[in-house]
């Protein structure tokens, strides 16, 4: 990515030495955000497995999209209104 040309009026300090975008004053925060999102994704995968098992055992089918929205809204509520 470091070979990517940038717009002419790009401010300095937008990227790290390998060309990755950085946003937080503490560079580790950028990586930590990615870790949190990956963890949330894996939690959701487990959630869907549980739903599938419960449905296989006779529970009423669950609307995955609605359940996911509630899951994401609940998990990421602390970052709203930053």
């Amino acid at each position, binding site marked *: 990515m470091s*070979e990517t040309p940038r717009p002419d009026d790009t401010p300095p300090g937008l990227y790290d030495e390998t060309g990755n975008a950085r946003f937080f004053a503490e560079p580790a925060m950028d990586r930590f955000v990615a870790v949190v999102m990956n963890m949330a*994704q894996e939690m959701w995968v487990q959630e869907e497995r549980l739903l599938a098992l419960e449905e296989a055992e006779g529970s009423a089918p669950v609307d995955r999209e609605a359940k996911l929205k509630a899951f994401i809204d609940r998990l990421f509520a602390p970052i709203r209104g930053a």
Partner: protein
Amino acid sequence: MSVELQHPMNPHKTADEAARGRFVSGMRSLILNDLAADLKVAYDRRAVPAWQRSHGAPPQSSAEAHKALRGDPAFNIYSAMRVQAQKMVWASVAESVEREADRLGAAARAAGGRVALNPTLDVPKNVGAIEVHLMPGSYTRGGDSLEAGAVYDRGLAVFSMGLMGTNLDDIGLSMSCYIRLKYPDFAPQSILDTGTTIGHNTLPWKLTYPDAEVIAIDAAPGVLVYGAARAAMQGQDVQFVQMCADKLDYPDASFDLVWSSMFLHELSKKQRAAALAEAYRVLKPGGLMLHMELPPNAEMSAFDGFYLDWDSWYNEEPYYKGFRDEKPPELCAAAGFAPTDYFQFVVPSIGIYGEQAIADLIASEAAEAVGQATTGRLAEGVMWFGFGAWKK
């Protein structure tokens, strides 16, 4: 929501892959709706007043809005999460593409399709060396195998959250419908799509004008191989050819319509000017050049301009802002078109609003009302911006 592609290349996803894709679409919805709204609030409440205190006026441009927001907590969170979500789009489909390589290969061979590759073509840097959209390997991933096309098709299905149609063809369907209704006497017999990738927005033109010979070009080989098979599987006779839009291997006056969608902003300024000049050259008199694109910064507020230009800095779209800073009428004039033959419009998504909405817009002439209310990413509804010119 994640889209289930309605063609035989649709992945046979495992339950975990389906869950991962669904999660990424859900995260993108949070980011592009809720966090984007938070970003606008932060801009109005903190960034603009601070910028005004130090500069004596609010941000006047996309670049100034960007500088005003850098470092704001809402900007940091929105941006860091959007970058990661983008990476997760491609990661969520990589395993299924790898696992299904043999099935896809067999299906593609069985489907046939017309494709002509040019192994001697020097693939431009913007196609193969820049990881456009943070897409690993970019458009040339896997060489002339089906890999790049499959990743792009499946990734776009996750990325689009259902807004681009079930076969990712809503832009082409909406635009071709607009042209058919707006210009009922226009009946192209030869159509060229430049920068087609997998042909998702090429096929609607064949559907709209079934008697036309339709050719789709791209510089990357793999997406063409995939696109040709994908088209054949949908019963569409389109020829896919490896070629650069800024150096067309067709004689003058070869086509009635030269089209592109979301393509010009991926070219450098020099390539873009050359591509438009080439479009003019290969058009027949009376022919139409038409491009679906991002709306220009001149039509938008500083914030909305920045909101779109974000991709230029953070989504490996280095030419995106440069294109949006240009003025389409001037680009067309420089390519040879008469200024009076230029037109621009916005068209509602046919998949969401239906053909009648497009007809109503044409009847009211509201489609020509390109501006802040219709073209901003935060504008109501899904509207596609287009511009073009007729060749005398």
